[in-house]
C-alpha cells in the first residue's frame, strides 16, 4: 500500500514540475549518449582489433624429404595440441609460389634458382582464447620438441608490439569509460541538485508538517530511476539515429566495409546503458538529497 502512495507522489510531482523533469531527463539522456557513443566506438574498435588477432599464426617448418604418411601424422599430432585451432600443410612448391607472388616486382630473382630451397611447413592458427604471449610461447616450445620439426616460429616482435598495444588500448578504454562514468554521475547529480534547489522550500515544508526523511526521499528515488530509464532510452534512440546516418554515410565512401563491419550496441550493452542511467539517476538523487534535507 505504501509504495503505491510513493509512486503516486512521484508521478504527481512529475506532472506538476514538467520543466524540471524534462531538463533532467534531457541531461541524463545526453550524458548517456556520450557514454553510449564511447561504448559503441570502443566495442567496434575492439571487434576490429580482435579480428586482427585471428591472424596470429605459428609456422612449423618440416625437414626435407619426409613422406606423406609422416606429414599426416604430424598434422594429427599438432591438431591435438591444446589451443590449436587449425593446421594447414604448405608444401615446398606452394611456399615458393607464395614467395614469388609476395615479391612482385622483384620476383624475377627467383627465376635463376636451380632447385627450390624453401622448406615445407605447417601453418597453425590458434583458438581465440589462446592469445596471450605466455601460452603461445609454451605451445611453440612444445612444437619444437616434435621430431622432424627443426623450427617453429611466429612474428614475435610484431606480436609483442600488438599485444602491448591491445592491453594499452583496453586500459585507455577502461580509464576513459571510468572517467566518463564519473563525469556522468557528477553532471547528473549537479542537475538533480539544481532541481532540488528549486524545490528546497517544498522539502522544508514537508519536513515542517511531519514528513519523515524516508517519506520525502522515496518519491525522489523513484523519479531518479524513472528519469534514468527515460534518459537511457532517449540516448539509445538518438544514438541509433546517428548510427544509421553514419553507416549510410560510410557506405558511400570506398572503405572496405566487408572488412570493417560497424555494428550497433549489442542487446547486453543497450541494457547496460539503460541500467547505468537508472543507477546514475538514483545515485544522483541520493547524493543531492543529502544536501537539502537538514535536520
Amino acid at each position, binding site marked *: *500500500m*505504501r509504495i503505491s*502512495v510513493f509512486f503516486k*507522489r512521484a508521478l*504527481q*510531482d512529475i506532472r*506538476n*514540475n514538467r520543466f524540471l523533469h524534462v531538463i533532467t531527463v534531457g541531461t541524463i539522456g545526453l550524458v548517456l549518449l556520450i557514454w553510449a557513443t564511447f561504448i559503441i566506438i570502443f566495442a567496434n574498435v575492439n571487434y576490429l582489433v580482435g579480428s586482427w588477432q585471428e591472424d596470429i599464426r605459428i609456422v612449423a617448418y618440416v625437414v626435407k624429404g619426409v613422406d606423406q604418411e609422416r606429414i599426416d601424422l604430424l598434422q594429427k599430432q599438432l591438431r591435438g595440441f591444446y589451443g590449436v585451432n587449425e593446421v594447414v600443410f604448405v608444401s615446398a612448391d606452394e611456399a615458393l609460389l607464395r614467395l614469388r607472388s609476395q615479391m612482385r616486382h622483384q620476383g624475377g630473382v627467383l627465376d635463376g634458382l636451380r632447385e627450390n630451397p624453401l622448406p615445407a611447413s605447417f601453418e597453425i592458427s590458434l583458438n581465440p582464447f589462446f592469445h596471450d604471449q605466455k601460452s603461445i610461447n609454451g605451445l611453440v616450445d612444445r612444437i619444437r620438441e616434435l621430431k622432424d620439426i627443426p623450427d617453429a616460429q611466429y612474428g614475435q616482435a610484431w606480436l609483442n608490439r600488438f599485444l602491448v598495444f591491445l592491453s594499452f588500448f583496453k586500459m585507455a578504454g577502461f580509464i576513459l569509460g571510468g572517467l566518463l562514468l564519473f563525469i556522468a554521475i557528477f553532471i547528473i547529480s549537479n542537475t538533480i541538485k539544481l532541481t532540488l534547489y528549486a*524545490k528546497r*522550500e*517544498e522539502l*522544508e*515544508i*514537508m*519536513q*515542517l*508538517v*511531519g*514528513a*519523515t*526523511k524516508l*517519506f520525502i526521499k522515496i518519491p525522489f528515488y523513484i523519479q531518479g530511476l524513472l528519469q534514468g530509464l527515460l534518459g537511457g532510452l532517449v540516448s539509445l534512440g538518438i544514438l541509433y539515429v546517428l548510427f544509421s546516418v553514419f553507416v549510410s554515410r560510410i557506405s558511400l565512401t570506398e572503405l572496405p566495409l566487408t572488412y570493417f563491419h560497424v555494428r550497433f550496441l549489442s542487446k547486453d550493452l543497450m541494457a547496460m546503458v539503460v541500467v547505468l542511467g537508472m543507477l546514475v539517476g538514483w545515485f544522483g538523487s541520493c547524493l543531492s538529497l543529502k544536501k537539502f534535507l537538514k*535536520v
Partner: protein
Amino acid sequence: MIRTFHVYKSYGARNALEDISLHIQKGEFIFVHGPSGAGKTTLLKLLYLGERATKGQILIDGVNLQRITSKRLPFLRRKIGVVFQDFKLIDTQTVFQNIALPLEVTAHDKKYIRKKVSYVLRMVGLENRTNSFPPYLSGGEQQRIAIARAVVNEPMILLADEPTGNLDAGSSQIVLNLLRQLHIRGATVLIATHDRELVSQSNDRVIFLNKGRIKKMKIDD
C-alpha cells in the same frame, strides 16, 4: 502542554528573544501580541523546532525540544499544526495536495483524506478551489488554505502566526470560529498577532511581547 524556561534566541549579535518563561496549559486558547519585530514568529519557530533556542529549555507535551533526536522530530511535528505567517504553501501542488500532505505523511487512506480535505475546505469557504495552485489564489485565499492545512489532522497544538493578516473582518471571524472549534475539541491554540482588535475582542490570556521580552500577561492593553 508547553513550558519554556528562560529561553533565549539570538541571531548573531541580535537577540530575537530574551528570557522567555512560559507555562501554557493543555486546552488553553492564548494570544501572543506585540509590534512588528517583537519576536512572535521567533517564539513559534522555537516551539515547532523551525529553529533551536540559543539558551534555555522547552518542553512540549513532556518532550524536551533541546534533546529530541532528528528521528523523533517528525512525530512531534505531527502533533503540532502551524499556520505560517508566509503561508509556506507548495506552489507546484494543488490546494488539495497541499492540504492532504499532513494526512499523507501519517498514511491515512485515500477516501478518508478526500473526505477530510473537502471538509476543511468547506469550513474556510474555498471548496471550489480544490484543484487550483496557490500562486493563482488571492492573498486571503492562500491564508485560508494555510489554515486549512494546519487544522486538517486535528493537531493537539495549533500555532497560528498572524492568521487573519490578509483577511477581511468576515473571513477573520470564520477563521477564528474554526480555531475555537478545534479548541473546544481539546486542542491548545496559540495565536500570534499584531492586531489589537483581535486580541481585545476576547477574554483569553494574552502574552505581550516587545523587543524579545515578555512585558505583561494580562488581558487588557
